[in-house]
């Protein structure tokens, strides 16, 4: 073959996948962008305008948009930070022992991945609501006298329930990433450091952490992007105000006034931009690693 043949063949082989992704994602992206600019042939609007963005960023919808943006950033930031820290502890604890992580532990980590977010969220709701199982047990034991005395852990104003959900769900995910890194790196560095007289803490800080950090950071950014744009968990475990961006966007989209779809799509576009930025950062970090 000529030297031009190889790239052509590669593109040709990639074409089916690119075609499907491009068609499905590309169409909806273009369509969503169009709607955010007020292109709504459904109700006879075919001109492109920036009204929806103006309304979302500075108009009447802005009063809900900015708190929602802050809420989404807070929830996804806190979830990611806590999950990453927790994952690091779990992974180090598991890999630190003489015997490598065994079936049961790995199964516990993996099983969690198969559990849908909705199931987790509903389970949390049933357990931790003021009339949930834990509150009932507490009441039966005489610790509290009524539902309202039980602390508000889900459907709370600060998104604690949502954060709790994602921390529980993402620790195993990130722990698996960290474990994979630790396993491929082996114990050589660690042993060398030990023979040179480094203590346990020193080895964790100077050897383990730098080794896993790029992988963990990339994984954490994925978690951040995921949580930031997630809908079902904030919808189930959140309050009426402030709402997560995805919840707010869908609310606008489902508004009986079809003209409000533009605002919903404008919010979605802003969310997409944030997520794309995060994904770009994640990729750059991965490259560095």
């Amino acid at each position: 073959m000529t030297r031009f043949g190889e790239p052509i063949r590669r593109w040709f082989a990639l074409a089916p996948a690119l075609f499907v992704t491009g068609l499905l994602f590309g169409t909806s992206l273009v369509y969503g962008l169009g709607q955010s600019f007020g292109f709504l042939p459904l109700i006879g609007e075919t001109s492109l305008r920036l009204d929806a963005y103006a309304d979302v960023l500075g108009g009447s919808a802005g009063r809900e948009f900015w708190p929602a943006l802050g809420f989404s950033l807070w929830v996804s930031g806190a979830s990611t930070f806590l999950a990453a820290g927790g994952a690091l502890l779990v992974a180090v604890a598991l890999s630190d022992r003489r015997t490598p992580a065994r079936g049961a532990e790995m199964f516990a980590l993996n099983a969690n991945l198969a559990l849908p977010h909705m199931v987790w969220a509903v389970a949390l709701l049933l357990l931790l609501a003021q009339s949930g199982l834990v509150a009932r047990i507490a009441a039966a034991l005489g610790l509290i006298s009524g539902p309202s005395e039980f602390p508000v852990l889900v459907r709370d104003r600060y998104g604690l329930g949502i954060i709790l959900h994602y921390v529980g769900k993402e620790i195993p995910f990130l722990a698996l990433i960290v474990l994979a890194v630790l396993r491929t790196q082996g114990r050589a560095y660690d042993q060398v450091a030990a023979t040179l007289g480094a203590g346990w803490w020193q080895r964790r800080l100077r050897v383990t952490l730098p080794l896993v950090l790029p992988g963990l950071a990339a994984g954490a950014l994925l978690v951040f992007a995921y949580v930031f744009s997630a809908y079902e968990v904030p919808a189930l475990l959140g309050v009426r105000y402030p709402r997560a961006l995805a919840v707010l966007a869908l609310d606008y989209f489902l508004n009986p006034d079809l003209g409000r779809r533009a605002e919903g799509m404008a919010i979605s576009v802003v969310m997409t931009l944030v997520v794309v930025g995060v994904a770009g950062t994640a990729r750059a970090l991965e490259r560095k690693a």
Partner: protein
Amino acid sequence: MHIRMVTRIGLTLLAVILAACGVPSASQPAPSAAPPAPTVAAPQATPALNIDDWASVEAAARGQTVNWYLWGGSDSINRFVDEFYGTALKERYDITLNRVPVADTVDAVNQVLSEKEAGRDPGAVDLIWINGENFLSLKQADMLLPDWSRRIPNARLVNWDNPAVNLDFGEPVEGYESPWSSAQFQLIYDSARMGEDELPRSYAELLAWATANPGRFTYIAPGPGAFQGTRFIKGALFELSGGAEQWLPFEQALWDEHSPALWAYLNELKPYLWREGETYPKDENELHGLFANGEVDFSITQAIAGAGPLITEGLAPETARAFVFDDFMIGDFNYVAIPKNAPNKAAARVLANLLLEPELQAAQILPENGFGLGYAIDVTRVTDEDQRTALAEAQTQLGAAATPAADLAASLVGDSAGEYQTLVEEGWRQRVLIGAEQ
């Protein structure tokens, strides 16, 4: 070797394109557990369907399947629909009922809207149980079959002069939809927890009650899809402004005059609400859950059979009872509509007509049948003596869990003009939920 590889890639591409072409239809079906294949009628066998010649409509409908999209969240309602309408359609008209359950009526609306965008005609939906904002959406998108509902035979049993019938959340019905049943805003309490004499009978008394029992009351957050909450607020507006009728035509000045008192009332109530008004249940089911769990002492219902259907479903304790304030309990009707691109329009009309049959109207109100909503027809317009008696009798058999008929009638008011819906909902979010005082 080379050619074979190219062929293989070519075939893969072809398969992908075919799959991609299939995608729009694959992502379309109704959001139900088992999307039934909608039966599409052969490209209009009867080109000139004369809708004023009812026999010809019935003849055209024979053998059709009617795809009825309706909220499927209540098992007892689903059973009622299958048993009463499904059987009657098959036996009387040889029409098959395909009940398509949707989680929220807005799903059916979006189905029709995406069909419009995709240019799909005939579509998949023949009839939708609809009212309020969803009706407005489809009307706005010009996707409803016009001028049919007053021309079906049983339309003569409907009192079309009643503004509660010819306006749907203030939006003129104009022949786009046909009524199915009626409902009225009511509250539910647990007779095992409190006596009848302790019940608040006005918004003013409710505030006093809540102040004395902090954390034991809440209402559904008003907003699209949660009209019960909006209705609760409107009732307060009516009481504070001293009348419901003045709100029937839209008048901005009237709103500007009375809305500050409304927000003041609700903000005064707020600290005594469940969770101190920090959050509110998002729909009826969530409030029923709070009520059944003993977190709050009142729930809200629209059913004429009161708490009866909830008790049947196990969502409320046996001792639950419905009651009303002395005034300003909003009542209205709900409807069925036919999309413009419905594949079986004749069968859809026959079903809409069947819903208004007096004997089925008498059946729908009884709590043991699981539906429990009121009549859409005006009983005085029924000429058949036996049917009139049956309708009158059914109203006396609503059981202890229902609000007494006299109380319902005494407190009944109509809804306000449609423009107030958004003002109430947006205003509530800004002034009460987010809580910026003006």
